[in-house]
């Protein structure tokens, strides 16, 4: 019988490619009594985002991230469990106790529970739920729980998982059915993954609407309408208008993860199309990308690793769609013929494309969306600029922009201040520009 330490070593290593970042949750602030009297529960998610450790690759290690079991009925070609000879499982009590010990040492902030599929998805999920139940109701843990939903799990178990978790996720792994069957032929893309993602959205919305109506304190404060608006309202492109809607359950929403570069012909555009669909149709909160790393002993063990830079570009593009409200159509305009993102910051590529047909931006006149087009200006500095303009502040110097947080070395080629633009190195390679400058000088 393997010891708990041995299980942590094996199952922790098996889960290291699963990505999770956030421990933020607005739950406790608005709904303190969700898991009982807050004075009697352990853990808090209000001041979340604190990381207690970092691995030597610089990644934050704030969650107790292990698999529940690595005994798996699937044979995914990229997966660690495929090659691992030692098959072990936690027991619910062992899992809960180990986590509580680590939490009491202040080395982790919450739980990330994932698993291989032992027997059936429902059987394994039942056991995972038992561990979560022990945490919530025996050890009174009220902190952050990220539950990894297994492909093909039944709707009733999904409801249970939602009611006890802060965030839930189902790994898509690939962008389409064809690409998924290439790397994990036993998984059914539409039935096991897409259908479950749709269920998550439906269950969450239905439950939250009912819960909001039952909340007397919100009725009394006339906040109900506002809350419902936050849950339902959408941007013109179909994305959710409010990322954190303060919903009573699962308020960190659902996420997903892709293995980048495992399927032979999968392009960045395919992945971007899938996450765009996710934001519009299933209220995806965010997507994670994990560059494919070959693992010895797996069918893809001899395949070349995907460059980490590709993962980085995908995160940048995702950020542009989600936070900057760029449309997929914009990004389609900059991808290469093969359908991948070009080298370099996607926002700079987008700006180069956009400013071919548009004039430079004058910060004293430009709209919020136009300002966001400029590299070096993000949502915060754009808001500051608009905010200052409404108070009749005029930007006359580059330093004024620097003061509000604009990165001038990036923004310079695209902005016009007081009718002038800053000369950049790019101008010196432009012959027409140099000619006019020389003429002006001699005149």
């Amino acid at each position, binding site marked *: 019988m393997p010891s708990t330490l041995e299980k*942590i070593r094996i199952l922790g290593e098996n889960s290291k490619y699963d990505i999770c970042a956030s421990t933020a949750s607005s739950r406790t602030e608005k709904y303190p009594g969700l898991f009982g009297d807050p004075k009697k529960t*352990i853990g*808090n998610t209000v001041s979340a985002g604190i*990381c207690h450790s970092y691995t*030597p690759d610089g990644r934050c290690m704030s969650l107790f991230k292990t698999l529940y079991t690595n005994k798996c009925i699937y044979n995914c070609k990229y997966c660690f469990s495929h090659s691992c000879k030692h098959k072990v499982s936690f027991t619910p009590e062992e899992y809960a106790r180990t986590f509580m010990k680590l939490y009491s040492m202040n080395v982790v902030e919450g739980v990330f529970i994932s698993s291989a599929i032992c027997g059936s998805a429902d059987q394994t999920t039942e056991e995972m739920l038992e561990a979560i139940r022990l945490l919530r109701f025996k050890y009174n843990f009220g902190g952050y729980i990220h539950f990894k939903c297994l492909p093909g799990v039944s709707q009733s178990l999904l409801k249970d998982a939602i009611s006890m978790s802060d965030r839930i996720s189902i790994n898509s792994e690939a962008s389409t059915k064809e690409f998924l069957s290439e790397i994990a032929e036993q998984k059914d893309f539409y039935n096991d993954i897409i259908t479950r993602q749709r269920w998550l959205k439906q269950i969450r919305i239905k439950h939250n609407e009912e819960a909001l109506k039952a909340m007397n304190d919100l009725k009394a404060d006339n906040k109900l309408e506002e809350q419902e608006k936050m849950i339902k309202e959408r941007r013109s492109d179909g994305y959710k208008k409010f990322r954190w809607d303060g919903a009573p359950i699962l308020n960190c929403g659902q996420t997903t993860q892709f293995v980048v570069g495992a399927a032979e012909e999968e392009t960045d555009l395919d992945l971007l199309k899938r996450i765009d669909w996710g934001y519009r149709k299933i209220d995806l909160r965010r997507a994670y990308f994990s560059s494919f790393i070959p693992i010895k002993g797996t069918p893809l063990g001899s395949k070349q690793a995907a460059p980490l830079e590709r993962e980085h570009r995908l995160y940048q593009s995702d950020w542009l769609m989600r936070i900057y409200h760029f449309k997929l159509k914009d990004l389609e305009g900059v991808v290469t013929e093969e359908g991948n993102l070009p080298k370099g910051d996607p926002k700079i590529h987008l700006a180069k494309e956009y400013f071919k047909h548009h004039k430079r931006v004058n910060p004293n006149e430009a709209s919020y969306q136009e300002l966001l087009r400029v590299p070096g200006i993000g949502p915060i500095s754009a808001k500051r600029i608009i905010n200052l303009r409404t108070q009749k502040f005029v930007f006359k110097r580059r330093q004024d922009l620097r003061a509000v947080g604009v990165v001038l070395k990036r923004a310079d080629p695209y902005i016009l201040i007081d009718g002038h633009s800053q000369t950049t190195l790019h101008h010196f390679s432009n012959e027409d520009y140099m000619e006019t400058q020389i003429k002006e000088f001699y005149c």
Partner: protein
Amino acid sequence: MTKKRDPLEVIGCAKGYSHEELIKNIHRHSRYSPEIERQIITIPEAILRNSGTQMAKKINKMMREVFTEAYRAKQFTRTEINNRGVLFGIVSLKHNVLDLVLVYFHERWPQCVICLYNEQTRETWIIDEKGAIRQFHQPLKKVVENISRDRRIVPYFEDIQFSGEEIFETLYKSQFIAERENKQYFKKMIPDCCFELPGMKNGVEKRFRNKKINEFL
């Protein structure tokens, strides 16, 4: 009706501090003087928020130092809990932020008494279940013993009375992906100064790196 915003208000993580926040917290800094407080009152808030003058810049730097120290303590203080619900640990704080750290732990463990010993001042501060803070000029061990004496054993704290250090070390090692090793990024996330904190002096993070070199040699 929406609240009218100060046009120079910085939004997001770099939003700066209001007059009120500054006056309330500047005294926490180890180099605080009443003169600084007088300066805060005279400087307009917009200038303070945007570090518009040298003095404003200095004040903001002082505030940042205070809150960074509190944040580091919340991150890297390693604690233990006994079967009577007393959570204890050691911190090393230059500035007067121990109450902020205690409140953080109190929110996480509301039914426990939290005891933190500050190496710099050699004092033990405690926060009880009701949120009342007291300080003792006694070593941590003695304070923990005194408090535990009157408290009954709590079953679910009794359940977790085993050593967790090896568990954390195993978990920490298991999460490392060699292909992604990035020393610079790691250093940015845990700067060298953090390894001087009591919880990190002999921390798993440091041992792990050292072991690797030894094994190589």
